């Protein structure tokens, strides 16, 4: 197996896609308003005619690049390029205002690289172990795995927990459109036969993640304020890296926070970076310097959000449950290639999975090199005009949604759900929980129906859900995740209040 993996990694075409993916991701991530999820969803049509290796390597590179790219605009113009870089603005932008943008960018690049590599190593070692365990799962366990994902659905919602749950419920409901997996009858098709096959996941992903962002940008009109020209200063980068190497605990702690947050399905990079930033403030004696341009603040945020990338792929590859919204798009890419992620992925496609994971780790090194030398060039691109960017994005969404099944109906569905997603977002319903609901729906329904049939055969329909050891563990995990979702919501309110207080003090 390892010979195949090595030869795939040495293939110049794969290397080209890896470098191109990382570079493209950095550029898209640096553009405020364009998220990593959107970048991945937009790139899906490029992968249709590709073989699985280069397709996944490129998408992995885009994911890594976009999460780092978000820090460039966060540091230079105080606008996070992606939601994952929210905490980077707290100290990154004050560093720029103090005339230290180079230091801030090098700090972000180095921390992102370390966090990303640690996340990749976790993916390499933890994911197969988890997949081995998941091979023992039966229908009741899969039902509870889906419930586990759903209990923390609310953390994907930026606002109210209740709205996150309603969004998740709506997603689950949408997943039931078409023929029932066990009962075999049509549901919610309203006599319209093309709906019997169900709603296509990739179409929904493209519509719900891209169109609302496009419409929000039309509403805001400008993508960014202005591009920036940066000059490279001699000796700065080396000095910053020396300083960072002397802080292994901060780097390690931030990366671990990112990895754990990523593994928990639903909690994304923004949660990871805020949690890590919060811990950095608590553990640092100079906590009063945070928010005023402290380098450690940038380290905490960036190491954590890039480590989260690897973490979010652990449940995807081992259980078939995406750990974050961009991982949901990667799941769509796997499905396009005819590969269903889940416990048997490691036994059915070991060459592909290990090629992807090793390439993922290499991509983090590539990202560091590109970030180190290329951040100042990307900074100049921040001012891409909306009138060029937005029609391009819409065209890509149309091509992408059509190419999956050559269906004009899918284009209409994509636009329809995209427009609905925009209005839902305006009233506080994030697309993340809806999409997670659509993904988890079939797992939950099949698990529920098969367990009921098994239970019936054993004499008690519901006992089977609560009497097996693994189901009990999953029930406990679901309860913990539900409580942690409540805690994160409360903490987030606290961070916002803290930021408001700090801004008021600054204004005073």
């Amino acid at each position, binding site marked *: 197996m390892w010979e195949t993996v090595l030869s795939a990694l040495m293939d110049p075409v794969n290397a080209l896609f890896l470098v191109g993916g990382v570079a493209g991701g950095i550029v898209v991530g640096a553009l405020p308003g364009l998220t990593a999820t959107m970048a991945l969803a937009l790139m899906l049509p490029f992968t249709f005619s590709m073989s699985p290796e280069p397709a996944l390597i490129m998408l992995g590179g885009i994911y890594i690049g976009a999460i780092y790219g978000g820090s460039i605009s966060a540091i230079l113009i105080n606008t996070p390029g992606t939601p994952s870089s929210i905490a980077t603005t707290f100290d990154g932008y004050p560093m720029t205002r103090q005339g230290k943008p180079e230091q801030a960018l090098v700090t972000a690049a180095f921390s992102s690289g370390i966090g990303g590599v640690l996340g990749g190593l976790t993916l390499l070692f933890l994911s197969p172990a988890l997949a081995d365990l998941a091979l023992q799962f039966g229908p009741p366990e899969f039902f509870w795995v889906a419930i586990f994902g759903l209990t923390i659905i609310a953390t994907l919602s930026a606002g109210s927990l209740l709205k996150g749950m309603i969004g998740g419920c709506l997603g689950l409901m949408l997943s039931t459109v078409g023929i029932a997996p066990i*009962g075999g009858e049509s549901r919610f098709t309203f006599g319209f036969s093309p709906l019997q096959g169900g709603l296509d996941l990739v179409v929904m992903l493209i519509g719900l993640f891209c169109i609302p962002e496009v419409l929000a940008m039309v509403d805001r009109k400008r993508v960014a304020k202005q591009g920036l020209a940066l000059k490279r200063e001699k000796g700065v980068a080396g000095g910053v890296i020396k300083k960072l190497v002397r802080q292994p605990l901060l780097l390690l702690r931030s990366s671990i926070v990112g990895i754990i947050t990523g593994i928990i399905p639903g909690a994304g990079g923004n949660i990871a970076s805020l949690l890590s930033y919060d811990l950095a403030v608590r553990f640092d004696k100079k906590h009063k310097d945070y928010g005023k341009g402290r380098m450690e603040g940038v380290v905490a945020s960036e190491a954590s959000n890039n480590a989260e990338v690897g973490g979010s792929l652990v449940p995807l590859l081992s259980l078939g449950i995406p750990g974050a919204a961009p991982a949901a798009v990667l799941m769509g890419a796997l499905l396009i290639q005819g590969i269903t992620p889940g416990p048997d992925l490691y036994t059915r496609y070991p060459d592909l999975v290990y090629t992807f994971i090793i390439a993922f780790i290499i991509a983090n090194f590539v990202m560091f090199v590109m970030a180190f030398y290329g951040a100042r060039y990307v900074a100049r691109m921040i001012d891409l005009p909306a009138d060029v960017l937005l*029609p391009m994005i819409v065209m890509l969404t149309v091509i992408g949604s059509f190419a999956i099944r050559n269906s004009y109906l899918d284009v209409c569905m994509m636009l329809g759900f995209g427009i609905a997603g925009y209005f839902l977002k305006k009233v506080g319903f994030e697309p993340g929980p809806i999409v997670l609901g659509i993904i988890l729906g079939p797992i939950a329904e099949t698990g529920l129906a098969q367990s*009921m049939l098994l239970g019936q055969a054993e004499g008690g329909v519901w006992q089977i859900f609560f009497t097996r050891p693994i189901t009990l563990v999953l029930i406990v995990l679901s309860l913990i995740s539900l409580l942690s979702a409540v805690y994160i919501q409360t903490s987030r309110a606290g961070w916002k209040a803290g930021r408001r207080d700090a801004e008021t003090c600054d204004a005073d």
Partner: protein
Amino acid sequence: MRRRLNREIGVSLFFLGIAVIAFIQVEGLNRMSAVFPRTLAVILLVLSGILLVQSLVRPPEKKKGETPLASSRILPFLLILVLYAVLIAGLGFLIATILFAGVGTWYLCDRNKIRAIIGSILLGILFYALFRFVFLVPFPGI
């Protein structure tokens, strides 16, 4: 405050409506086909009910910089999007895309006709050539 209150109540009623329709739709289906969507309909009904009560008892505060649900800037662009979808079926991807990119760019770049015309033709042809001949992706319409 009143507009916000109406918006929250409207959203709750919308989801209540979906839950009721879903519940009615699965009536008459066999047990295995109905159990999951029926359970979801009940959960959605309960959650929407809580949202309705919450929005009546404690209406949320208006957020800083909050824009109307459909601003005057977004509505024409929505219309352009819908027309694009319709035109794809009638005129094919290339012509519909050039028209969409032209009108879209014109609308977004403060009615600059020259920029819109040049930009749309270049973008349309570039995308068509790239996907049709390099990535071998099929196109909707003619």
